[in-house]
């Protein structure tokens, strides 16, 4: 029994001694992790709020999107002003930000603003970001990486100190309008080198991507999507694409006289043309039906959108007829027809069409219709202005494959009026 008491005392003493060890932590650094993180956050905060004119960067939510100019002015009180060429400045404003530590030290834009609006495109599914990890920092450059979307397509945002003039975005907004399809000019734009056409050029105002289509051999065409940055004076290809040995490098300055983007040094231009350099092939007539793409009117040219909207308003004002659907149906049947839905009934006018060697489609009315379309008749007066534009081109219609609908699996096709190439009418197809 006596031995047992000594055993207990021995164990107690051992426990006491083992617990008596110095509880202080030996840090690898001079300060605790908490202190170092706190200092890092303070440093980042000073860095962000440092430049007098804030920071400028080009934000692209994913590889399928081009870049938006992003100007940020961080204030020490937790507010940040964010201006951009997104939405032509309509989403500019102030939000709250914080620098925080979770897995890494991060920059979080914590109330709703411009970056969140971009993030919300297509039901929050475009892999955007509004929380970023700091990757590297200096007074000349801050590199951030998207935190929300940790896929292999991580958003990378490089910020550099902005100049005061960078904040004057009006000329950038104007440049975006210059890039969009024009009410006056042809739908087609070509890239020329020494005044020789080398590629077709297109700009998608939603995705902010340009696309370049050119031949790489007699039998093979190549299309490349390219992010471009839009500047007050012109545009620049961010990734310097190469077209059969010609590199699209440097800024293309906008020339309002020519309505063209010109890089004089490299003898390069992006110009409107009545004829496309190349168009993506679409097998016209392979699907039963096409319908005017009311879902994505921006896929038609601005000139057609303006015409169509004016036409609808005029017809309603003058005749009380509203038009809500325009189809070309039964394309791969014996009796293709134009099918127009109106509040006065559905008009069906039969057509023939032919896709010729020049790869254009030519339409003719057969004269067979459920309404009288003869000259002088009321339906002729109502519908003829529309028919002139959508099937009436004597030199046919260029056919362009314009990919699928954003939210549905249907394909889309644009028919460009060769008599008046400013009119490009986009349809979606279905059986």
């Amino acid at each position: 029994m006596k031995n047992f008491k000594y055993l207990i005392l021995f164990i107690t003493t051992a426990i006491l001694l083992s617990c008596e060890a110095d509880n202080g932590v030996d840090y690898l650094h001079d300060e605790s992790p908490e202190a170092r993180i706190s200092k890092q956050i303070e440093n980042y905060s000073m860095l962000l709020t440092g430049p007098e004119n804030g920071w400028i960067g080009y934000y692209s939510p994913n590889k399928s999107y081009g870049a938006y100019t992003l100007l940020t002015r961080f204030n020490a009180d937790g507010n940040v002003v964010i201006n951009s060429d997104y939405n032509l400045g309509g989403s500019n404003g102030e939000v709250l930000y914080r620098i925080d530590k979770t897995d890494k030290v991060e920059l979080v834009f914590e109330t709703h603003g411009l970056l969140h609006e971009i993030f919300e495109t297509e039901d929050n599914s475009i892999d955007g970001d509004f929380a970023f990890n700091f990757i590297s920092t200096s007074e000349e450059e801050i590199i951030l990486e998207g935190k929300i979307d940790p896929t292999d397509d991580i958003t990378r945002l490089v910020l550099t100190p902005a100049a005061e003039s960078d904040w004057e975005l009006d000329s950038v907004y104007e440049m975006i309008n210059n890039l969009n399809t024009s009410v006056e000019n042809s739908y087609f734009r070509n890239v020329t080198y020494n005044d020789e056409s080398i590629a077709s050029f297109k700009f998608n105002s939603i995705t902010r991507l340009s696309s370049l289509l050119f031949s790489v051999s007699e039998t093979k065409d190549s299309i490349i999507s390219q992010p471009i940055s839009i500047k007050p004076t012109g545009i620049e290809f961010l990734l310097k694409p190469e077209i059969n040995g010609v590199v699209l490098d440097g800024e293309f300055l906008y020339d309002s006289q020519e309505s063209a983007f010109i890089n004089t040094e490299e003898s390069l231009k992006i110009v409107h043309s009545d004829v496309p350099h190349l168009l993506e092939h679409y097998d016209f007539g392979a699907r039963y039906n096409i319908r005017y793409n009311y879902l994505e009117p921006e896929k038609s040219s601005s000139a057609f959108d303006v015409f169509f909207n004016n036409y609808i308003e005029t017809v309603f004002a003058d005749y009380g007829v509203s038009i809500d659907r325009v189809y070309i149906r039964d394309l791969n049947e014996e009796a293709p027809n134009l099918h127009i839905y109106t509040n006065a009934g559905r008009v069906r006018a039969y057509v023939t069409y032919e896709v010729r060697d020049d790869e254009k489609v030519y339409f003719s009315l057969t004269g067979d219709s459920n309404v009288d379309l003869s000259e002088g008749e009321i339906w002729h007066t109502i519908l003829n202005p529309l028919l002139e534009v959508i099937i009436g081109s004597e030199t046919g219609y260029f056919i362009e494959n314009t990919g699928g609908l954003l939210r549905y699996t249907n394909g889309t096709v644009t028919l460009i009026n060769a008599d008046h190439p400013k009119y490009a009418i986009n349809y979606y197809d279905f059986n």
Partner: protein
Amino acid sequence: MKKNITIPIILIPLMILAIIMACRSEDNPTKFSPPTPPDLSHSNDAFLYNNDGKSLYERYGLSVIWRWDDDFIRPSQRATPVDESLVIDIGKMIEYLWIGSFTAQGEAGEKFIQEHIPVEVVLIGSYIFNDDGTRLLGYAEAGVRISLLRMNELNFLNQNWMLDPGGGVIPTMNHEFSHIVHQKNGIPTGFNSISENYLGSSWSNNVSLSDAIKLGMVRNYGTLNEYEDFCEIISHYLAIDEETFNLIFIDQDDCTAYTTANEIVNCNELNEGREKIALKLDLVKKFFSDNFDINLTSVRDTLLHRVEKVINLNDIPES
């Protein structure tokens, strides 16, 4: 032979004390830190937390979280923050339309809210989209937090945004709040045996409103299980005027008016479902009356009257 081991009694407390004292450490990484009071420098926080005793925090201990924190959603989900300029209006709406429709019932209502109000309400600007393409309207977590979604669509003129039982903000609040109620108190005895079965995860497979009614539920989501059924009945009952609610969910249709066999079968099935809904609603009303002294019909009338006032003013009236 088993031998009893005895230790002088004086040694035991000394040993325990010695061990505790020796092992105590100032560097204990799990040391409890009480929550820090919110930074009130922003006018939103001043309104929500320190408003002359009138704020939701001061009155009910309710924290309204409006600054983005991705801890509130899963990594696979996508959502965006609330617009900071809407936060005070949302706070007023929470108090006037949601909390207020209960507390207007008097002491019992006040007590009911005090006992069941969640600790936190999280405001999220958009829907929460899951990676499978589905989206959430709102959710409650473990009885302590309710997340309110698509707050950036706030529009006091839009009755649908406020009251649509299929996703309006007030029915969503009441739905999630009802989860807290059953998490703390269970559901009425017998409620889960009125309908013969629930559909589980098949609830989303093209289950129409008629299908749901035939099963005895007011919405397809209610066919998931008895808890969603319970919450949907409450949120629908509180959001729909009596005449409309009865017409859709309670009143028996006259099946003799139909002529084809299919129509008659359909009518009878709907009527059977409505009987089940009526039974459940009675149980739910009695459950609230017996347990909390709350008259749900009176809560509904208060809520609908208040929504009407909000629409007329395009604002939350000063109470």
